[in-house]
């Protein structure tokens, strides 16, 4: 990959990310898919002395319903206005979202209000009538991956491990996959813009890995909301993911890193489904390609226990990656909860190698 030109473009797309005092809003679905990702973000933020506040009254941003065509934009705007009201009431002005679709929706709504102030006024009336609340718009809006990107050097410095194969000394080959709603709608709101998003690349490079450039790098994972939510449409979703896997396979990726709720879910789970439907696997020796969120990877770099990071609920086993980096784990504890009780063991897949 020729990096010179890309580096120049990346330099033009640097967004402002607040230094501290964040109001954090969670994703609707991530705690089901990757249960410890958000908890891990809060853990390392605390360890780096950052103040992150969560208001227990916050709800969905309704983006998942908006993009599925079941929640009208005025409703979505009023719910977003309520989240901003909670931030205002809590005394914060830096808004950080866990979800990429939320980040996209907040950005879209703030931009709409900027261009059409009469709509903002209308939404303020809706919120006042419904809840009696008022809000101030955030001074800084960032995604949690932006904040982690900002901390990447500190994480690297405090880290116990590097993205390096301990047996060969070679960097781990990583595919980075950015959620569509991160910067495709508003390129200037994402680190690196829409064409060369740098947010995950920056983390991979800083932590010692090698980024793989491949033909379908910017292709959607296939979630597409209605493509998955309606069962009859799931063929569209899995076909899009398969297109990406086929495209990246010749480059022998050892890890897929993501920053969206849907992407890690589908890039991870569809590998199992494709293997059961067509007998195809995309990793080495019948294995899959492990898929991690940036919080989970940051946690591994910082030396957190893989099972505390929830890596046992990934469909594609992560053990081959842990072995390469040299991260110790106890196979006996894989399916135990924090009180050492069994959480149950999944059935072994027919083709995908299981540990």
């Amino acid at each position: 990959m020729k990096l010179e030109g890309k580096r120049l473009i990346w330099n033009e797309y640097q967004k402002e990310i607040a230094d501290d005092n964040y109001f954090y809003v969670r994703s609707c679905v991530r705690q089901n898919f990757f249960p410890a990702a958000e908890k891990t973000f809060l853990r390392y933020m605390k360890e780096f002395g950052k103040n992150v506040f969560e208001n227990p009254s916050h709800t969905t941003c309704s983006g998942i319903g908006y993009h599925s065509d079941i929640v009208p934009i005025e409703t979505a705007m009023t719910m977003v206005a309520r989240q901003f009201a909670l931030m205002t009431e809590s005394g914060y002005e830096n808004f950080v979202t866990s979800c990429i679709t939320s980040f996209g929706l907040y950005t879209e709504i703030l931009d709409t209000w900027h261009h059409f102030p009469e709509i903002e006024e209308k939404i303020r009336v809706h919120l006042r009538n419904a809840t009696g609340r008022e809000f101030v718009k955030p001074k800084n809006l960032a995604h949690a991956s932006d904040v982690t990107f900002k901390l990447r050097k500190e994480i690297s410095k405090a880290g116990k491990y590097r993205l390096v194969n301990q047996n060969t000394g070679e960097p781990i080959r990583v595919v980075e996959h950015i959620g569509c709603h991160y910067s495709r709608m508003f390129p200037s709101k994402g680190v690196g813009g829409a064409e060369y998003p740098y947010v995950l690349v920056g983390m991979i490079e800083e932590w010692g890995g090698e980024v793989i450039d491949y033909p379908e790098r910017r292709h959607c994972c296939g979630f597409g909301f209605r493509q998955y939510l309606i069962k009859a449409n799931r063929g569209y979703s899995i076909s899009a993911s398969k297109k990406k896997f086929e495209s990246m396979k010749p480059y022998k990726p050892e890890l897929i890193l993501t920053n969206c709720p849907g992407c890690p879910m589908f890039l991870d789970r569809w590998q199992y489904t494709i293997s059961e439907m067509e007998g195809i696997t995309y990793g080495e020796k019948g294995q899959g390609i492990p898929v991690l969120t940036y919080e989970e990877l940051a946690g591994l770099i910082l030396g957190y226990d893989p099972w505390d990071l929830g890596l046992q609920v990934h469909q594609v086993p992560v053990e081959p990656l842990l072995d390469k980096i040299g991260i110790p784990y106890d196979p006996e504890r894989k399916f135990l909860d924090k009180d050492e009780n069994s959480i149950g063991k999944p059935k072994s897949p027919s083709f995908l190698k299981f540990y």
Partner: protein
Amino acid sequence: MIDFGYTITKDRQLDYDRGDMRYYRLVQSLEPSVDVCMECGSCTATCSAGQFTEFNIRKAHTLIRRGNTESIKAELRKCMFCGKCQLVCPRGVNLRNLILAMNRAIELLG
């Protein structure tokens, strides 16, 4: 294999690196007029065989030009060599000989 209630669509992306261009090069040498084809489809619109079967000269030509010959082997046998395509071709491509050249290429290259 498990049936999950949906299917995986076969990728229709064309990969020119995977195409076998030997067929088109041989067809070009056997019938050089193929190079002036602008793929207007007049040949297909007037094709006698195409009225009764799925035979499509334009598609066959496009596929062989992309190096994708698998699906056209059986198709080419449907041509009746009536020559109407050749009469309507605005570029004067010798279409009957083109079909023969395509068949010849498949015969020689497998």
